């Protein structure tokens, strides 16, 4: 039995080079049917791909209705050979179908080996599994590396450069695969089943269709599909494969997620680079355009890149290619040349633009009438499990975090909030910590469904999408305190992947940050997680370590940060310092860490250049912590407020000390004495200048406390000096004022 009417195109998944060759080959062959490696039960969905509203990257999603977490993905990019084959087939009215095992077979296999893959990335490659040997996952990349190339696409295009006919290329690839697979032992059962299934489908198609048939599959499979196997054996192999029905749909995809299954960078598929290759196929200036793209990214980042440098970079790339004996500059040559000519030799700068260039920021689109969105289904399932109904009218919900069902509900609502679906709003946010209760207001808006579909790019279930979205936010977070808040959010929403990523980011950022304010501001949310984490069953060891490290760092940075600040900056830092101190007391760190923090405060207090407000604040915190005895504090106040100190500085210190400690004066005689003598020492002008400050400091005392303070100062049966009534008769005074003002305003004889 000959195979002369079946053409096998062994492609590289997501390889723009093979996509280009494939389209040409199809054009030459004009097949009546195009068979593509992919789940056969999704064949009906294939023509949708060619719809104009469908903008790749998109992915085919198959999942079991009852368990969307088991979703399998088959992503398609503009440059995927499979996608181009579909477009060609639809344009040329050729029959089109998938020929791989039906999608449920993949779920059952995932279930068998699922144990260790629970947390593994959900992005499965279209045809091969993550855990297979690299030469099977990407045989063409392997050949390229053997030839000394880091990038498989550059190798492919060099080979094509030397073999301009597309037909012989696929023959050559098939030969190479034959050699690679030659002498391989028995392959895994699942792989054997897949290949058997594909063979049977090809045979069936030969009977069904007239004209040549094109088979588009991963290069690795070509030899096995070409080999002759008795159909009986193949059918025997396929006995008992799962035939359950699965739900299928298209979902929008993103550039970065395309690269997810691989990791990007040298030697693997980098969507940005592939897209560039695809868009510039057949053009002679592809290298120049790529360099121009690099320059554009650099310019956006504020680096100066001249056109002349681009010319030099291109010349260097060509010479490098010549030295490496390659027909034209590929990925590596362009990168090395860019580093030498555009980046001043700094490889680090390349790392900065690499992600942007290689991953790209593409987001796919799907036609609005695409059936079913798995996130909505997942939500419905979760709503059922949580016994919550989406209702447009507002409704109060109180949740007890100690019960499993309460925790489940809270987690669901928090996760939806991460996704921008504010079905539930926490009404007592901020006050809720330390309690086991959360109060929510529930109200469902129709637009939430749309928003859920938009979130599909982050994952197929609410948990995964929330994880994905939060991880993206974590990657974009610029400061330590925003990161800390995000991690807090991740832990509250029970998103373990995001919190792991967040903690990692937090640790890295904490090490690099020397911005004291940022460090201090990150402590309160962390302390909250550590202190009240039990309610959420979180593992807090790692966090405690991080917190201690932040405390040490903050203590070291504080004395420098407290120097020579203006009023506004000082006030901000003082408030952060107080909150951080509160957070530190909350987490009860080790004795030496606590001492480290107090030493930092002491250094602020003693530092000659420390801003007075902060010195006062530090003194107060030390006094509260018992590091400063009452006598020492009184002595300190006496000294800092003594007439020799510039009045503005004394006032700053005073405010720093007392702005949250007014009550202290009621009970603490030593302190009161010190303050009293300072106030008495002020001359009239200075006293008046400081009145607003004094008022501000004492404003947080209520009237009762004020009264007691007055009593404490003036004795128990306190009488204010005559004429100074704390609550003068306002009405009477106003009447007198008006009496005098009236004539003045009406121009009467005011001054005679």
């Amino acid at each position, binding site marked *: 039995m000959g195979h002369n009417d079946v053409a096998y195109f062994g492609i590289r998944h997501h390889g723009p080079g093979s996509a280009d060759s494939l389209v040409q080959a199809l054009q030459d062959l004009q097949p009546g049917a195009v068979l593509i490696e992919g789940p056969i039960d999704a064949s009906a969905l294939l023509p949708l791909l060619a719809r104009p509203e469908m903008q790749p990257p998109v992915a085919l999603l198959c999942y079991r209705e009852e368990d969307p977490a088991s979703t399998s993905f088959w992503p398609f990019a503009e440059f995927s050979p499979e996608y181009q084959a579909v477009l060609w087939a639809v344009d040329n009215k050729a029959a089109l179908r998938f020929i791989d095992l039906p999608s449920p077979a993949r779920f059952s296999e995932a279930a068998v080996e699922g144990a260790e893959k629970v947390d593994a990335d959900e992005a499965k490659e279209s045809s091969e599994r993550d855990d297979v040997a690299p030469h099977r996952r990407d045989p063409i990349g392997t050949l390229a590396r053997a030839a000394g190339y880091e990038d498989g696409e550059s190798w492919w295009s060099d080979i094509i450069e030397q073999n301009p006919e597309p037909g012989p290329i696929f023959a050559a690839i098939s030969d190479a695969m034959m050699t690679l697979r030659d002498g391989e032992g028995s392959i895994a059962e699942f792989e054997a089943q897949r290949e058997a299934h594909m063979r049977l489908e090809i045979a069936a198609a030969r009977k069904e269709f007239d004209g040549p048939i094109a088979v588009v599959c991963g290069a690795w499979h070509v030899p096995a599909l070409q080999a002759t196997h008795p159909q009986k054996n193949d059918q025997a192999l396929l006995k008992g494969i799962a035939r359950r029905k699965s739900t299928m749909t298209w979902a929008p995809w993103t550039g970065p997620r395309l690269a997810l299954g691989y990791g990007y960078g040298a030697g693997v598929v980098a969507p940005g680079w592939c897209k560039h290759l695809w868009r510039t196929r057949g053009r002679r200036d592809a290298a120049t355009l790529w360099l121009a793209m690099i320059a554009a990214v650099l310019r956006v980042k504020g680096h*100066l890149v*001249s056109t*002349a*440098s681009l010319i*030099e970079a291109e*010349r*260097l790339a060509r*010479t*490098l290619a*010549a*030295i*490496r*004996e390659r027909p034209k500059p590929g990925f*590596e040559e362009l990168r*090395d*040349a860019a*580093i*030498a*000519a555009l*980046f*001043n*030799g*700094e*490889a680090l700068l390349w790392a900065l633009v690499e992600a942007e260039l290689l991953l790209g920021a593409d987001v796919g689109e799907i036609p609005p009438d695409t059936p079913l969105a798995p996130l909505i289904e997942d939500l419905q399932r979760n709503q059922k499990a949580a016994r919550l109904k989406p209702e447009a009218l507002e409704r109060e919900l109180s949740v007890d975090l100690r019960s499993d069902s309460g925790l489940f509900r809270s987690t669901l609502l928090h996760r939806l909030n991460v996704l921008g679906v504010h079905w539930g709003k926490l009404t007592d946010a901020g006050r809720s910590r330390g309690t086991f209760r959360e109060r929510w207001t529930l109200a469902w808006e129709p637009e939430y469904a749309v928003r859920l579909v938009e979130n599909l790019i982050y994952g197929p279930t609410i948990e995964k999408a929330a994880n994905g979205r939060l991880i993206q936010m974590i990657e974009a977070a610029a400061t330590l305190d925003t990161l800390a808040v995000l991690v807090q959010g991740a832990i509250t929403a029970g998103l373990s992947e995001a919190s792991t990523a967040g903690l990692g980011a937090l*640790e*890295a950022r*904490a*090490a*690099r940050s*020397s911005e004291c304010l940022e460090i201090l501001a990150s402590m309160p949310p962390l302390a909250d997680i550590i202190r009240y984490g039990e309610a959420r069953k979180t593992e807090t060891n790692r966090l405690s370590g991080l917190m201690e*490290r932040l405390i*040490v*760092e903050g203590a*070291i*940075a504080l004395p*420098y940060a407290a120097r020579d600040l203006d009023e506004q900056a000082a006030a901000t830092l003082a408030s952060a310092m107080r909150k951080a101190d509160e957070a530190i007391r909350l987490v009860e760190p080790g004795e030496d860490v606590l001492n*480290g923090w107090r030493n930092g405060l002491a250094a602020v207090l003693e530092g000659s250049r420390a801003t007075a407000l902060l010195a006062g604040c530090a003194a107060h915190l030390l006094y509260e912590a018992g590091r400063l005895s009452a006598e020492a504090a009184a002595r300190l106040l006496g000294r800092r407020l003594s007439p020799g100190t510039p009045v503005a500085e004394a006032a700053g210190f005073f405010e720093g000390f007392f702005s949250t400690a007014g009550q202290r004066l009621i009970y603490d005689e030593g302190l009161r004495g010190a303050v009293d003598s300072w106030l008495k020492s002020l001359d009239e002008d200075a006293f008046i200048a400081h009145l607003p400050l004094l008022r501000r400091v004492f404003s947080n005392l209520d009237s009762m406390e004020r009264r007691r303070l007055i009593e404490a100062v003036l004795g128990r049966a306190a009488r204010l000096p005559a004429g100074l009534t704390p609550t003068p008769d306002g009405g009477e005074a106003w009447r007198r004022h008006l009496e005098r003002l009236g004539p003045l305003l009406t121009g009467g004889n005011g001054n005679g």
Partner: protein
Amino acid sequence: MNAAIRLPVEQAYASELQALARGDDRQKPAGWSLSPQAVLTYLLGGKAGDGTPVTPKYVGRRRLMETAVATLATDRALLLLGVPGTAKSWVSEHLAAAIMGDSTLIVQCTAGTDENQIRYGWNYAQLLAKGPSQEALVPTPLYRAMQTGKLCRLEELTRMGSDVQDTLITVLSEKMMPIPEFNTSIYAQRGFNIIATANNRDKGVNELSSALKRRFNVVVLPLPEDMAEEVAIVSKRVDEMAGGLDLPVPKNVGEEIARVLTIFRELRAGATADGKVTLKTPSGSLSTAEAIATMVGGLSQAAWFDSGKLGAEGLAASLVGAIVKDPVQDKAVLEEYLETVLKKRPDYAGYYAALNAAI
């Protein structure tokens, strides 16, 4: 018998260069004595066409050397950048030797280098006697390299003043040097090019103007990536230098080198060796050369003052000196490193205490 302490490398490695030239049938750029591929073999080691073994001159990433050679082949100038002790001058010398067979056209740039040492100078006796004339003109290495189509090496380019640096702009972009006194110019012959080296971390250097920088392709030579490699380099140099200074080398020097280098490498890399903790990096370069100086300082201290005992106490002062270049910023970096990393390592207890005392 030649009594020179060190011969130029084209003489020291003459046999390798000859062997490479014999077996070299690839295309050569104008004026080159070897093809670019043969130059790479000479630098990175391998076998000449006739099977003669070629020793590696540079141990490190191949693609850096490829970029360097390709740059020179495009007639664009090459700037080798890196912290001290990363083999910049070594590579520059070998490149010139392999490409031109001559590494001796060299200008050592310093703060005192003026235009006369870059362009051309005058023999004042001749100048007074004959006026501006060819006999009165004193050519510089750059001038001669342009005339004869050779490679000129500029060492420590950033050490000379910016105004002097900028005299290179015309030479690099137009490959000519005007001599207004004669109302003529000299035009560079094919093969002429410049290899400059510069230090990118030092203070007190004159940053290249962007106009000049743009005319160079830059290759940054990194510090050794591998701890074992670096320990070997430091041990060898410390032994050599201690021998030269007649310092006894105590037995534990190997362990102390490993500890000091760990501290250096961790601070330099901004992460602990196990990669678990990220660190801030100090402003200094903490190069291999500084590790060597720190060790030699410690040995000297041990020999003269600590009755031959080498330990953390003796090394602490030089360590702090190497790490804390900026009294405020670097001190905080070191304090943080001590508190978050060294404190938790029992075998570094001595360093923790000594460094804390020395800060």
